[in-house]
């Protein structure tokens, strides 16, 4: 932990300029990403709980380190345009990075009795959260951010699957080729299906896209019967390309590294989701993203400012469906099997619930929403089976699915009434409040 000595001492005087060399600015994030390696090499730990403790200390250290290496320059407008430049943003991002890379290791550890929560069964849920965060983020770009209520997103999941099945299985190409082709196909078809949006708005657009959904679904059934028969498609596990075998932690067997365990899938899903969501965040921050929001809020006003409304809508459709299509391809390979009824309107509603609960504005909502959506039922299940009083109630175990749905529905209503801007809004408010308290206490200490 020799980095700690470099931390800046002049934390007072908020108006001063502070420059930090680029290498030092990146370092906390590198430490965060390398934390599993660091923790793994601490071999003198007698039990897993000790490792958790060390990890927690490292988490705090990384956060503090990222906080103190933030640059400060009130006169530089370029700095204000950067993603994560404020101390709090940097600290949170570094800690999130570390938390994300720690998740699979935590889930893979055997814990002693007081902490013997069935962690491993959460792995599937975590993978779904990551994949649905990608799909919901892309859906949010269109429905939340551009205001085009599209119900055709299950169709784009299906198109990603179809590309995955056709390119990967029938043409026998590599899985890694399927992803970009799925993106391109999704974008092209998304722009095509977005054409009704140029004429229709709101509920009418929704109805038109439901029509699109059923047309495309018919195509999927025909396709499935024609190429794969009634049993549906079975995908094989993707093989990591050999030029990536140098990455630490990867030990190929017979020159092959199949992505076939939850642990390995997590890293693949996380990488692709992170890249796509970062891309979306940057789109939202750019001219294009502001044009999307302008089209949503007032399209006449947007036209008067010289925004090409038709183009904006089509770009939003294309971007969103390209990403949903990629997530569809990933989901299918992750699920291993897809059948005739794998894609239905309920999936779009799931995305809808995710972004409504998570929050409409921005990509954060998609992440919060999918955590809510998947983790909660899992938690209920655990409560139902393990908690002494609740597990005695026969009703809950007999109507497990229905009770889950009911509780989820009630919680959706509670969240919406309590905070219409969703969990992301709640998180922002809590963060701002904490920050303000912190600043006040610092100001108090300085006096």
């Amino acid at each position, binding site marked *: 932990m020799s980095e700690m000595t470099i931390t800046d001492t002049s934390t007072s005087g908020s108006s001063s300029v502070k420059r930090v060399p680029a290498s030092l600015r990146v370092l906390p994030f590198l430490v965060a990403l390398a934390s599993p390696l660091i923790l793994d090499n601490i071999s003198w730990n007698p039990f897993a709980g000790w490792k958790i403790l060390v990890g927690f200390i490292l988490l705090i250290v990384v956060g503090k380190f990222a906080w103190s290496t933030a640059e400060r320059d009130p006169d530089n*407008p370029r700095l204000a345009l950067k993603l994560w430049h404020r101390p709090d943003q940097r600290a949170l991002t570094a800690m999130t990075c570390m938390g994300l890379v720690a998740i699979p290791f935590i889930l893979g550890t055997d814990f002693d009795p007081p902490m013997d929560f069935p962690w491993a069964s959460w792995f599937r849920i975590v993978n779904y959260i990551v994949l649905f965060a990608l799909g919901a983020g892309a859906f949010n770009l269109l429905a939340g951010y551009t205001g085009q209520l599209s119900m055709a997103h299950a169709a784009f999941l299906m198109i990603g699957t179809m590309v995955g099945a056709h390119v990967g299985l029938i043409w026998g190409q590599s899985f890694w080729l399927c992803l970009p082709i799925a993106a391109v196909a999704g974008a092209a078809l998304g722009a095509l299906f977005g054409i009704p949006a140029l004429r229709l708005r709101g509920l009418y657009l929704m109805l038109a896209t439901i029509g699109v959904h059923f047309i495309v679904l018919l195509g999927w059934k025909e396709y499935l019967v024609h190429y794969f028969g009634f049993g549906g498609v079975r995908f094989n596990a993707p093989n990591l390309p050999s030029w990536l075998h140098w990455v630490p932690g990867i030990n190929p067997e017979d020159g092959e590294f199949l992505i076939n365990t939850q642990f390995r899938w997590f890293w693949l899903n996380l990488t692709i989701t992170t890249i796509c969501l970062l891309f979306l965040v940057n789109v939202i921050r750019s*001219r294009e993203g*502001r*044009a999307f*929001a*302008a089209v*949503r*809020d*007032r399209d*006449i*006003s*947007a*036209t*008067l*400012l*010289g*925004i*090409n409304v038709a183009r904006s809508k089509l770009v939003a459709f294309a971007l969103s469906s390209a990403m949903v299509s990629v997530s569809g391809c990933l989901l299918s390979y992750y699920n291993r099997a897809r059948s005739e009824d794998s894609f239905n309107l309920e999936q779009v509603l799931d995305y809808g619930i995710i972004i409504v609960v998570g929050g409409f*504005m921005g990509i954060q909502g998609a992440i919060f929403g999918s955590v809510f959506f998947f983790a909660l039922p899992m938690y209920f299940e655990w409560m139902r089976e393990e908690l002494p009083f609740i597990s005695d109630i026969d009703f809950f175990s007999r109507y497990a699915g229905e009770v889950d749905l009911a509780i989820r529905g009630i919680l959706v209503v509670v969240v919406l009434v309590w905070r219409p801007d969703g969990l992301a809004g709640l998180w922002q408010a809590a963060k701002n409040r904490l920050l303000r308290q912190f600043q006040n206490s610092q100001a108090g200490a300085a006096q």
Partner: protein
Amino acid sequence: MSNALSIDELSVSYGPIPALKNVSIEVPNGGFVSVLGANGAGKTTLVRTISGVLYLQKGKRTSGSIKFGGEDISKLKSRSIVRGGIAHVPEGRMLFPHLTVDENLRCGAASRRDTSGISETLSEVFDLFPQLPPLQHQQAGLLSGGEQQMVAVGRALMAKPSLLICDELSLGLAPLIVRDLFLLLDRINQEGVAVLAIEQNARIALRHSKYAYALEVGEVVLEGPSAELRENQEVQDLYMGGGGDIREAYTAIRREVNR
């Protein structure tokens, strides 16, 4: 090329209903022209035609031409018109309520591609409206009416226009704020931007503009230098509350009510 904008014999109709009949209006380079008129006179139709968004209301230009800097713009798409240098402050402000002030202003530069120029214009706009920088990161929908109107004007200025069209700047604002806004329009005008102000509030429009037109049911009924129109008895009666007769009218109404 003496005129920035010249509209010649323009007629517009919404389906079978005519909205403008043979309207001719000229805005000189760097001029300040106002168009007066009551509700339904066709003022908003006029500016929508100029900005090329008439089709959104299903209106149609039946005859006449619109020239901007000598070039016919009546068939252009609105985004080309904005790029050509006409910025429009729409009636009722029409901000993007969920975006911040900063983002709203940046939206105004949607027609431009030069990133460094955009931030330069942004700081110019902030200089022009010193109230705005502290509100930069607030949601535009939460600002007061006057502040919103400032954002709307600033947003239009972000396109670096050579002609600024203001539709009903005074709508729903306190008289003091309206006065401030018009003083700002004066400043913008002095920097070489031609201004076309569409106004119901004839008093303030005539005080600030150099030339004025009066629209009545889709036709230009009066035009002339603003100073002359201000003295005109007809204008005073029609648009400025009847000049000297107001006491007489008031007592007449009182008598009517008491009866």
